[in-house]
């Protein structure tokens, strides 16, 4: 490893996230060969709202993935000493946003401001004044008369840039569509679209779905262009109590939200599926035991169970400081433990659903036939029951996601959420709400956190609805 500019760090949550993505890709490849599944995904792909939501989700996932490539930077070389790496763990997103991350102010400043939010006694004056920001509007120099004009110029330049990129993309798509044979997937339609099946995309090409995706991309590019252009000289969403850029914090929160929303379901699914099928298929005392287990667990109110478990987890982590090499690792372990605890409370519902469905499947002819042929119990469960339950698993996976993202914020407020050093929507809201009593109010951290969360959860809800409509046999009208 000597001489490498960075030392890659694989946190546990990163590893699990990559495993999850590998599983999803593998399932997609498998689903492409199944006619029924392909048809269902094609229905999702033809739905304009769902594909617009998928595009937004795709952008969020991209940011989250960039934020999951962790490394430790090389420290400046000491002559004669072996290469040493910084203790601080950064991610690829941190590197991209180095500008935002490093340009910290002293404390609060409003969005696009040039001065701090609160008065301070300056060195060479007896009056308390608003000190200048170190970075916000620094390029303006002493003359602040051009502040408003500068914002307008930067904003329009950013919007124009975003529009230009979008037009380029549209041109490429048009060109590609006229050149490519009709059964090849379209390029540039967003990673999700290609992933959900190029064939499906072609059905909707030129229809409402691809138009919805292009329009969503237009909005995203415009916002992105404006943020980049304004962010070059200002703090677009202001700064927080310790002077960190709120835009940077919001972008970093995305990974935490995504992790909680996906890993929780991932860790609880194997247990829920296994116990649900066992209870439904085997019956007898196994059924009684499993039912007793999930009735007991689900009779404890969720928040209280989570609170109790998190309190105990804190004790474990606090009494074993030697388990973790860096603070990033400790925060990561806490995040994972939170996912486990959330999973512990939410597997009961899925297990109950799966048990009920298995009871129905068990009596169907194809299962009876398999039994008559002497196929083993576990082979029947794996080959005949499990594939017919996959739609329930998928629906519960996408439906749970948005609820979990929202729950994270609430739990962090209650004090049983992620580690206080982990940047998340919950910790952002939690630190910002202390300042609500201030006059005038510090509103920008809250608004930024809520807006990002709203975009993520709304996109997830819309996408989940489309998936449920496409996969739930009851809802197929």
């Amino acid at each position, binding site marked *: 490893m000597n001489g490498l500019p960075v030392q890659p760090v694989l946190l546990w949550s990163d590893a699990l996230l990559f495993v999850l993505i590998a599983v999803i890709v593998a399932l997609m490849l498998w689903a492409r060969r199944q006619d029924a599944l392909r048809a269902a995904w094609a229905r999702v792909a033809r739905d304009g709202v769902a594909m617009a939501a998928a595009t937004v989700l795709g952008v969020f996932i991209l940011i989250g993935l960039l934020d999951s490539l962790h490394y430790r930077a090389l420290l400046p070389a000491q002559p004669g000493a072996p290469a040493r790496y910084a203790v601080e763990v950064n991610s690829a997103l941190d590197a991209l946003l180095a500008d935002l991350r490093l340009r910290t102010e002293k404390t609060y400043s409003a969005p696009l401001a040039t001065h701090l939010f609160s008065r301070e006694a300056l060195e060479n004056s007896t009056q308390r004044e608003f000190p200048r920001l170190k970075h916000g509007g620094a390029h303006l120099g002493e003359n602040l008369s051009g502040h408003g004009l500068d914002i307008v110029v930067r904003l329009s330049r950013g919007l124009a840039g975003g529009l230009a990129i979008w037009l380029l993309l549209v041109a490429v798509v048009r060109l590609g569509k006229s050149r490519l044979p009709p059964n090849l997937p379209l390029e540039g339609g967003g990673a999700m679209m290609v992933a959900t099946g190029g064939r499906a995309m072609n059905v909707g090409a030129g229809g409402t779905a691809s138009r919805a995706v292009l329009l969503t991309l237009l909005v995203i590019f415009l916002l992105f262009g404006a943020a980049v252009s304004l962010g070059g000289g200002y703090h677009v969403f202001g700064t927080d109590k310790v002077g960190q850029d709120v835009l940077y914090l919001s972008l970093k929160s995305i990974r935490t939200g995504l992790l909680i929303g996906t890993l929780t379901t991932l860790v609880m699914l194997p247990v829920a599926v296994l116990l649900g099928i066992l209870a439904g298929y085997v019956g007898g005392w196994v059924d009684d035991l499993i039912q*007793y287990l999930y*009735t*007991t*667990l689900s*009779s*404890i*109110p969720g*928040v*209280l*169970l989570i*609170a*109790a*478990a998190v*309190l*105990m987890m*804190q*004790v*474990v982590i*606090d*009494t074993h400081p030697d388990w973790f090499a860096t603070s990033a690792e400790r925060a990561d372990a806490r995040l994972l433990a939170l996912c486990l605890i959330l999973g512990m409370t939410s597997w009961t519902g899925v297990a109950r659903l799966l048990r009920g469905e298995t009871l129905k499947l068990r009596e169907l002819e194809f299962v009876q036939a398999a039994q008559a042929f002497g196929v083993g119990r576990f082979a029947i469960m794996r080959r005949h029951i499990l594939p017919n339950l996959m739609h329930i698993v998928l629906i519960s996976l996408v439906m749970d996601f*948005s609820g979990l993202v*929202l729950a994270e*914020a*609430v739990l962090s*407020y*209650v*004090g*049983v959420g992620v580690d206080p050093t982990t940047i998340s*929507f919950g910790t952002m*809201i939690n630190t910002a*709400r202390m300042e*609500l009593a201030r006059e005038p*109010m510090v509103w920008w951290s*809250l608004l930024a956190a*809520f807006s990002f*969360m*709203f975009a993520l*959860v*709304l996109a997830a*809800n*819309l996408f989940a*609805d489309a998936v449920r409509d496409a996969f739930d046999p009851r809802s197929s009208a």
Partner: protein
Amino acid sequence: MLAYIIRRLLYAIPILVGVNLFTFALFFVVNTPDDMARMQLGVKRVTPEAIEKWKAERGYDKPLVWNGAAAGGAKLTDTIFFSKSVRMFAGDFGRADDGRDIAREIGARMLPSLAIALPTFVLGLFVAISFALLLIFFRATALDFAGVVLCVAMMSISGLFYIIGGQWLVSKVWHLVPISGYSGGLDAAKFLVLPVVIGVIGGIGASTRWYRTIFLEEISRDYVRTARAKGLPERVVLFRHVLRNALIPILTGVVVVIPTLFMGSLLTESFFGIPGLGSYTIDAINAQDFAVVRSMVFIGSVLYIVGLLLTDLSYTLADPRVRLQ
């Protein structure tokens, strides 16, 4: 009926025992009392004497489940498991870290919790069902679509936003009601209006959508077609037939919540400074008062199990075909 109730109550016992064992394992086996003492005392003040004192104050200085040193029956009773877990069945929750009796505290705090939770629940149910019926009346029109979009948007907003935004707008900008606080008697009304309204608005999106799905399922049934064929106006079809038949799925989700209303709402109570059980729990979590959290977990489960029983009983009231054996 009575036999059924008794049998259901007997079924509840093993579940409560399970909850009890689970909380015992979570609080005393995952971490030893020594660990908890070290955590709460802080790194600096940890000495063996301080830990022993902390444990003795809370009665954690006994063996976990088997006291070999005691005589006779005390071998079982003079233990943490008996004194802390088994005694919860008798309504004895011990003392909180501030020395107060937890059972008495819970009794005093139930009323404020209920004063918020009950109106929120009743009003929320009424508003959501009315809204859902309205959407069903205008189903497959632009109004229905707009309503559903509104519901999805509203359920995508964090509950914290409704509370913070509502407090800011109503109390800080318009100065209509005090921002937080509580008082007994009729004075309480002015403190309760805002949390109740916010609670109703915050829950409207998800519940309206849920009721709408239930109604939609009912409306495609044969009896609805018959009712329409008889020439009944849509209003009568909806209120007299669809609403009644949809009661069973609605009751399944609703009745179970009623007993847990006593627990109050964690968020609302702590934001509005209501001295109910929700804020009690939050304070206990923040102060790491393990005894209080453990008691609340137990009480919450008891109330939930009561809710399940009430759900079953409510079926017989709503649907004469259901007979409980």
